[in-house]
């Protein structure tokens, strides 16, 4: 079976100039790798923040003597708040048992108690997108409105600091990510331009013998797309190798690293293809306008 002419021409270029082809695939690969590596760091940082945010919890202390039925009904009301994931009632006895098991250094003090000093409480966990200071504050205010609630705490300072960290990470991530993407696009554009210039004679001959711009452009676009795909796969492979190297050591420090899922990897390769295609389109288009 004979391949279509543009594909045949594109593959012929790979055969004819293997070194330049390998270098341009490597250049695209390394450029995408810098973006991929940054995205991997950002992904893991976001994951860590998410893990931290899971600790955002509102504790509402119940007045002593409040009937259990009242608390149960109120729990159901609180559970219905749009921000709330779950509400857990901790009785006075459970609070004491937990204190005994968790605060071992005060074990003797708790054993000698004649009366339980710890109040019952409602532990309220928020849905992931509401784990910020503003939402926690809003829920706390509403819970405080129940007459049997003595006090509500949620570690305002800590949650506010987490908010600031999240905002800062978002801005820094966007700026650095954009800078990496621009640098990668420029490097890839220059690489593709070199391959176009290297074939300037061929292009001028094609034009002289009556080739249409479309005929000239097609193999370059295919070549750019193929290089983009290969560069994208190379970048994904390098990111995975880095991930494998650091996964083990990171597991000891934090909860372990996460890697891109299939959609993110596919998006990365697609991004490489798009850049290869766009770079070729611009380079060859510019060249055709000037010869």
């Amino acid at each position, binding site marked *: 079976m004979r391949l279509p002419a543009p594909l045949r021409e594109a593959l012929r270029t790979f055969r*004819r100039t293997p070194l330049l082809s390998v270098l341009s695939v490597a250049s695209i690969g390394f450029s995408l790798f810098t973006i991929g590596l940054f995205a991997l760091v950002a992904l893991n940082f976001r994951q860590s923040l998410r893990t931290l945010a899971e600790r955002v919890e509102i504790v509402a202390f119940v007045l002593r003597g409040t009937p259990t039925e009242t608390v149960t009904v109120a729990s159901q009301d609180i559970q219905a708040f749009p921000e709330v994931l779950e509400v857990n009632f901790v009785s006075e006895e459970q609070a004491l048992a937990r204190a005994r098991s968790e605060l071992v250094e005060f074990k003797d003090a708790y054993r000698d108690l004649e009366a339980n000093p710890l109040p019952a409480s409602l532990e309220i966990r928020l849905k992931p997108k509401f784990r910020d200071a503003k939402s926690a504050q809003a829920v706390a205010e509403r819970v405080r409105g129940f007459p049997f609630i003595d006090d509500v705490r949620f570690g305002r300072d800590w949650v506010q600091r987490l908010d600031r960290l999240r905002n800062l990470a978002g801005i820094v991530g966007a700026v650095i990510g954009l800078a990496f993407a621009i640098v990668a696009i420029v490097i890839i554009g220059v690489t593709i331009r070199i391959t176009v210039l290297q074939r300037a004679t061929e292009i001028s001959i094609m*034009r*002289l*013998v*009556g*080739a249409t*711009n479309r*005929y000239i452009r097609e193999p370059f676009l295919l070549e750019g797309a193929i290089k983009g795909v290969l560069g994208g796969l190379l970048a994904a492979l390098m990111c995975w190798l880095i991930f494998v190297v650091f996964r083990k050591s990171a597991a000891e420090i934090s909860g372990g690293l996460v890697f891109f899922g299939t959609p993110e990897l596919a998006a990365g390769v697609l991004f490489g293809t798009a850049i290869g295609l766009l770079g070729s389109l611009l380079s060859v288009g510019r060249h055709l306008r000037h010869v």
Partner: protein
Amino acid sequence: MIRFQHVSKTYPNGVTALRDVSFHIAKGEFVFFTGHSGAGKSSILSLILAEQRPSAGDVRVSGFPVARLTANQVPKLRRKLGVVFQDFRLLEYRTVEENVGFALEVTGARREGIPGRVIRVLTQVGLASKARVYPKELSGGEQQRVAIARALVNDPPIFIADEPTGNLDERATRGIFQLLQQINGGGTVVVMATHNLALVRDTPYRVLELKGGQIVYDSAQEAATAR
């Protein structure tokens, strides 16, 4: 086939290459353009090939108005022209037959018909036995023959040769010139720019001499005046 009417060409850098040039080349003619470097020969060929547009005046090639050609029309005009240059401009990584076949491929010719047409034209230029070799393995004269075969394979009504013998020895020059005469004998217009006055002097063909961007001598007009 080719008509220039009051054509001037000034390049963006301000250099005026042609000033009020007018001539007409009829079907079947063989015409030499002579003159020193910078006289305007290359500018005339560039205008015929639609590589440049005239700054003033009208250029018509095989019916195409060069000044008003759209990007889509340029390839259509070029398919009516066969072109060879002093430096051959062959693709080094393609064999002789691939170089010639390439000119057919880019015009979208039917693939099955390409090998037959390539061999026919290589036979015409005397290189059928070297179809599978690469340009680097050929002499200068042979490389120019390949370039001529490439220019002829689409059966163009006009053949443009820009200093085709500039890089060749005397024997090869004679061979190439004979080939161009054969092409002209088939009814194709041949337009050749050359420095080689000895070659021009010994032929009966029309000569247009350029100097400072103007035609200073046209052998056809001289003959008409003499008559």
